[in-house]
């Protein structure tokens, strides 16, 4: 999920228009936001506490991953925010009418 790349849309022989790019970041940011929500939910917190108390080796990588998700979420949300300003122009560009 974190490794999703907007360029992949261009690679498999299709020719997407710029709106695809905006949608990509929109989806990305929404998905990551929901993951963040899940990660900070009570249940996960409980699991984490439990793991910590038992000195599990799993806590280190997990919190690292959690941080990465946070960063990606911020990036995706920001990208979408900026790209949204182009949406109107791109709509005019692709609208053949």
């Amino acid at each position: 999920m974190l490794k999703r790349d907007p360029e992949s849309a261009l690679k498999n022989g299709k020719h997407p228009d710029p709106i695809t790019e905006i949608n990509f970041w929109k989806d990305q940011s929404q998905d990551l936001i929901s993951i963040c929500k899940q990660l900070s939910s009570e249940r996960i917190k409980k699991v984490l506490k439990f793991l910590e108390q038992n000195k599990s080796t799993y806590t280190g990588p997990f919190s690292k991953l959690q941080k990465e998700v946070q960063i990606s979420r911020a990036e995706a949300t920001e990208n979408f925010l900026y790209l949204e300003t182009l949406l109107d122009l791109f709509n005019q560009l692709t609208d053949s009418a």
Partner: protein
Amino acid sequence: MVDLFIPIMHTILLIWTYSQHYNTPARLVVLIREICNAIINRSRASIDGPTIFGFIGADEPKTADDKLTLALDVCTKFKDAYYEYKQKSKNQWKITSNALFVRLDSFSERCQDIMHLTSTIMQFSQLQRIDIGNTKGKTLTASVMQIYSEFTKAVETFTSVPYDIMDIEKREFDDDFYKFRQRIKELERRIASILTQGFDDSDTIIGKFKLLDSFKSLLNRPIIQDELEKKHITLLELYKQDLKTVGTLFMEGKALVDKADERSPIFKNLPPISGALSWTNGLLERIKEPMDKLSVLSQSIQDREEFKDVQKLYASLCKNLKDYNASKVALWEKGVEETTEDQLNKFLLYREPTPKATEGFIRVNFDPVLVRILREVKYLLLLDIEVPERAQLLFKKVDIYRT
């Protein structure tokens, strides 16, 4: 659509400047390439293969050509907009243009290929209307018709390809288009040979130019042009000959006119000044037309040494003729200024001199000099020559004087 490019690029640059994350070449490449895709889609929506063939079939290759020009223009405009903002980004956009525009460029190329096709069709359609004269004219015209029908067949073969020619993913296009071009080249060589035959066959310079004229834009095609270049020397020689003839005619005629000789080359019904002028104008026209055509014919002919000679000869002859005209008019104008005033101040009527002063007929006292001037003015105006004010005033009242 073109108007959108600048705002889009501007916004992209703003995002690049202010965004924390959206300012890497990788992101920009994707975005620009996707914009290119959108442009190509739009262009193809307005002009796709079937539409082009439709225009060709309906004998309107020009319309297709115009639309393609527009599409090409849009592509260049977008690239221009990109480079303009690349500059404004203070060269932070370090991306090879090739990575960005590979698809847009191949689309432009395809457009150019198709324009090549439409312009070929436009040029060849000229053949339908060609009719070659002179002794060999009939066989030559028949061959031209033959070539034209073969050309139509070639176009038909090409236009019946099963794919959309504006789809750049269709690589078969290159092969098919190559075949078509080969076919056309062969036809061109045949046209060139017909053209040279017809050229040798017609023996006046005007005739030769008419022949060239009838092929019009086809003459711009490289193969035909090469073939014709060999004929340029002949053309120049002939024209030079003609210039010399006109020169002699002018010298001889001038002598006769100055002596008011009966054999002078002036129409019987024209008064002397306008008669002389229309004669020289005739000579001027005779040398001017081929000169104009030579000048637009091709660049290579103008680079020749012979052409410069001819040009000099032409210029001096033109100058002589024009000087002669001017001197004739000036001389006459002077006469007009002097005579009219006196003549108009005379009494309108006078009595014929008879022994008894009161018995003679009453006559209109209108001097023949004035009549002569009025006639000149009439013809000079017909020849579009500037007439002195004095004479024009006189001429405006011609109806009054006549009654």
